């Protein structure tokens, strides 16, 4: 079970990242819980300089840009390896 957090206050880029991550999760066929973090003080807990940010199992994997789906899939696979 993965916990995926999307950091961002709801700008279009954050929604794009969420959509891409959801798609990657579906393609991999894994279970994941999505949490949208919109509160600035909570976002700033992570080492991030610009939104959108993507956090998988409390590890920030990407910030300030929209990653490609292949990248997200790799991160998800890595996170799964660490869990098991």
């Amino acid at each position, binding site marked *: 079970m993965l916990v995926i957090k999307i950091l961002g206050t709801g700008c279009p880029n954050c929604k794009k990242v969420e959509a891409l991550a959801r798609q990657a999760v579906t393609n991999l066929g894994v279970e994941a819980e999505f949490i949208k973090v919109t509160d600035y003080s909570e976002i700033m807990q992570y080492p991030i300089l610009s939104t959108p940010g993507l956090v998988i199992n409390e590890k920030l994997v990407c910030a300030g840009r929209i990653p490609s*789906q292949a990248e997200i899939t790799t991160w998800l696979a890595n996170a799964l390896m660490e869990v098991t």
Partner: protein
Amino acid sequence: MDILSFLVRLFQGGMGNLAAYLAAHVLLCLVPAFYIAGAMTALIPKASVTRFLGRNAPKFISYPAAALAGSVLAVCSCTIVPLFAGIYKKGAGLGPAITFLFFAPAANILALVYTGGVIGVDLAFARLFLSLAFGIGIGLIMALIFRRSDIAHDKSTDAMFSGKGGMRRGALIFLLLLVALLLAGTFKVSLLTNTYAEFTLPISGMDRFQDFLYRLVPYDASKGEEGVTAQGAILIGMLVLIGLASFKGLENIFEGFNLWTWMAMGLVGLTLMIAALGMTPHAGGLDIRFTGRFFGVLLAIALLVWLMFKRLTEDELRDWLWESWRFVKQIFPLLVVGVFAVGVIRVLIKPEWIQALAGHNTILGNLAGVIFGVFMYFPTLVEVPIAKMFLSLGMHRGPLLAYLMADPELSLQSILIVSAIIGRLKAWTYVFWVALFSTLAGLIYGSWVDGTGLGMIVLYLTLFLAALALVLYWVDKRTRVKGTIPQKAATD
């Protein structure tokens, strides 16, 4: 019946203003500006600037770097707020963070280009230089006033700011070419404005079309208004087509490029070229003049297309298109509504009111500009058409600059966000300084417009900055001597 004709007049005012803003010369600056902003966001690695904003960076590097970050990296609030909080809490501290916050909305590429295109290059430069001087000034003052609490900040890792990043050469050239496209489209030099070739399209009825447009949107040239030309009408049609193609081709660009994507880009190029042509309709047909501007735009576009295919990776291209489209989507609709509303309001305001209040370069006039800027909130870039309206109603350029400096920096919304991060006391102190400095900026610029020599102004400005620096230095020294005890108290 009276009310009806009044409403028609309001509507015509709005439409007239809108038409003037979609006219060729504005398109030639605004469209490339959106693409430049997109390219800056997508192609400049943030680390290449933020690495100068770490905790250990010396002041003379971190303050200019903060201003640079403001103008290059931060066109939208997605970046401004997190970067502000990051610089403040984990990076160079309160001072550079404030400089960044001040500089970003006033002197980013979109704001500057739009100000230059609509109101005048002189005001755009004044906005840039005075924002730079005062942004750094306010940053230094804030850092000094709140010196003690700034030290208390977490001395956590510098890792966030240690990233190394350079720009690829291909991407850099691409960005410079976009700037060249902008200059070719807007620079007023005879090389670009001269006509080199001319022919007549035998389309009858263009003159009647033109007359119809002038009747639909009547205008008064003496008030600085512009009517809709036939060229303008064609361009507006093209813009609608671009919007449609972009919506189909760029909205889902992360699923891959499709036919619409290429069509949208082709249309943008075509529109820019049409905008660069000179057109005069008459009874026999339509005169088309090939100006130097047209050839400049054509050359820039051709080079850009070549670079796009040869030097940019597909990821870069996609990110660039997406960011540009995102800016357009975010800013353009509000801008259109705002411009229309400004046109309507303009019919209602009497020039005498503005002239009485801010027609001259006085302290009161400048203050009025600033106060209006603080209490009114307008979406990004709408402050520019509003300023244009004030200008045409007789506002002096000094108070106008004061307004342009204060409005984007200070809105209730941004004050609230900022105070959530740095606390209410600091936020309101910041507001106070911005108001003071904006008034001052307006006065200085206004006296320059009124004919005071450049030397005198530079002298005044240097004296003021020197006095400021001296006070800062003095207080700095004092706190350093006595500072050991309060420092301890703060870190406890």
